[in-house]
């Protein structure tokens, strides 16, 4: 069952009197109990997509068109007052850096309870649910944790608190903004396992934002690869890793170092830089960096087509790639 449906979302950021398109027609579905990886490099629009869903765009940014449906309700159409009441209760978010995501001057219990109170849960009920939320994320002695200030907790503990706070109101959608990036590898694995477990338990729809394809492979059932504000390719994780249908996905996959590579050559890189959003090319935004580009790529922007188990926004089918050699350029 589809819980989160993003339909043709467009988001712009006002910059020097102009609206820069940061999200350009993103469509994405996340089912209950499903984790969808949203992959892309900095500036690809993945964070703006997430913040649009949460309704927490920074000053100067706004959704210009499209719909964000959660259980059929369009969040974009809501007034800000109603939007606030959906935050935390319908859509919740966990963040990249657990060291800064918590208010240093409030006990973690107070911070979790604050979210509950903002949605009308007060008194002993708020306290009970705060402790239950802490317990649920596997932290020992919940009452002691609740009375602690963030600086008394380790990074992993804090991230668990952030997760507890996000899930305390049983939201339908969880947006995870690279929640493992700032953590030690062993802690990363624990947090991945925890989110995975809670997702199953609560039938959560999880949108997992990351630039780390390794994390995606570990946790996500499906992946959407973003480039220059659009979804370049959307596919099942298995299908994407086996046979990427977009040259950009292929290039991303090729730049993951493989531990089985015995010959340590230089790691392939994608030449060039992502396009300037203020001056997008007329054609496919990846065309200038693409090894498989054809003439028409420079003139028209491809719409997503279903091909080889993927939805890919590319004119050139995978079968035609090989002739032009490797997608990658050797680093200079």
């Amino acid at each position, binding site marked *: 069952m589809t819980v989160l449906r993003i339909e043709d979302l467009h988001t712009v950021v006002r910059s020097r009197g102009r609206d820069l398109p940061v999200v350009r027609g993103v469509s994405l579905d996340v089912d209950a109990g499903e984790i969808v990886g949203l992959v892309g490099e900095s500036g690809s629009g993945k964070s703006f997509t997430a913040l649009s869903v949460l309704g927490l765009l920074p000053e100067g940014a706004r959704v210009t068109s499209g719909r964000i449906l959660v259980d059929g309700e369009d969040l974009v159409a809501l007034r800000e007052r109603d939007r606030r009441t959906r935050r935390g209760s319908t859509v919740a978010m966990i963040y990249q850096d657990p060291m800064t995501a918590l208010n240093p001057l409030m006990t973690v219990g107070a*911070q979790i309870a*604050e979210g509950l109170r903002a949605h009308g849960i007060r008194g002993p009920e708020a306290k009970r649910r705060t402790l239950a939320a802490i317990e649920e994320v596997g932290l020992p002695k919940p009452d002691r944790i609740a009375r602690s200030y963030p600086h*008394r907790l380790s990074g992993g503990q804090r991230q668990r608190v952030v997760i507890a706070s996000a899930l305390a109101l049983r939201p339908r959608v969880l947006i995870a903004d690279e929640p493992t990036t700032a953590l030690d590898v062993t802690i990363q694995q624990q947090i991945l396992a925890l989110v995975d477990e809670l997702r199953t338990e609560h039938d959560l729809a999880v949108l997992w934002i990351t630039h780390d394809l390794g994390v995606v492979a570990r946790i996500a059932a499906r992946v959407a690869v973003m480039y220059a504000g659009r979804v370049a390719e959307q596919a099942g994780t298995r299908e994407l890793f086996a046979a990427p249908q977009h040259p950009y996905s292929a290039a991303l996959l090729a730049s993951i170092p493989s531990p089985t590579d015995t010959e340590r050559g230089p790691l392939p890189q994608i030449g060039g830089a992502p396009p300037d959003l203020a001056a997008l090319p007329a054609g496919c935004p990846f065309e200038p960096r693409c090894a498989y580009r054809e003439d028409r790529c420079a003139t028209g922007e491809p719409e997503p087509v279903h091909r080889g188990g993927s939805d890919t926004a590319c004119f050139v089918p995978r079968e035609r790639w090989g002739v032009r050699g490797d997608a990658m350029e050797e680093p200079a």
Partner: protein
Amino acid sequence: MSLRYLLGRVAGMLGTLVGVAVVVFVVLRALPGDTITAKLGTQAATLTADQRAALRHFYGLDSSPVTQFFRWFGGLLHGDLGVSMDTGVPVTHLIGDALPVTLELAVLAMVIAVPVGVLFGMLAASRPGAVRDLSVQGVGLLGLAVPEFVVATVTVAWLASAFAYTPSAGTYVSIGDSFGGNLRQMLYPALVLAIGLAATVMRTTRSAYLEAAGSDFVRTARGKGVTEARVRFRHILHNAGIPIVTMVGIQFGYLLGGTLVVEQVFALPGLGRLLLDGILHQDYAIVQGVTLLVAAAFVVVNFGVDVVYRLLDPRTRSEGRRA
């Protein structure tokens, strides 16, 4: 707050005050002239050597500076600040009369300036670069730039011409005598002091608020669905509190010794006036006593600020263990 920390702090505070006592004493002695010339003016030149020696003996100026210092310092330990050489009144009495005036002025000015400064600082920071920000900042800059003596004089002149009200005429009415009468005398000087203070507090609040507003935890709070008002006060302002409290503390300490100009213009018998008279008459005991008092006030206010830090920020508290 551990006992050990408290003892350390108190020792440090006392050390500072001893240092201040020494410096004030030495600096005063290093100035040319003495209380006799200051008191007698040109007539001092007609004194015979014997007369001068007798006077010096009378004022205790004939003993060595070291002896004088320890005599004064010994008195300090008993709470005796010496006697005004000019009037013969004990300095503790003079300060006892003047301190409440200045203290009231300072407190009143703070009570007006802090809420105004904080609220306008928040208003300015809520939309940096917008009209409200620029106007608040512009007015604030004006408040800082115009000197107190100008504002004070203009206020007095304006009150007199517009309302035929002269706050600086007549004798000082203490709170004990008449609350209303006292407030009528104190309100305008306090307002004058509050202008510069509010501007300072506003600027500090604005920058501290902006910095705190950019923190990740603010986004976390909004992401939980917390109301905007609560985000602003509970999360942003609270985290901006430390620089604001520091600034307010410094300003308050400064006010206790720095209301001189306003006291002079509004003819209020406060510490500033007392100090000024002391300096004009080279009345060592008064200058030493007031300076020491102001230094003590600074030290105590600083300590108070540290205590407030600990209340505001759990990271500065040492107790407790890792969970």
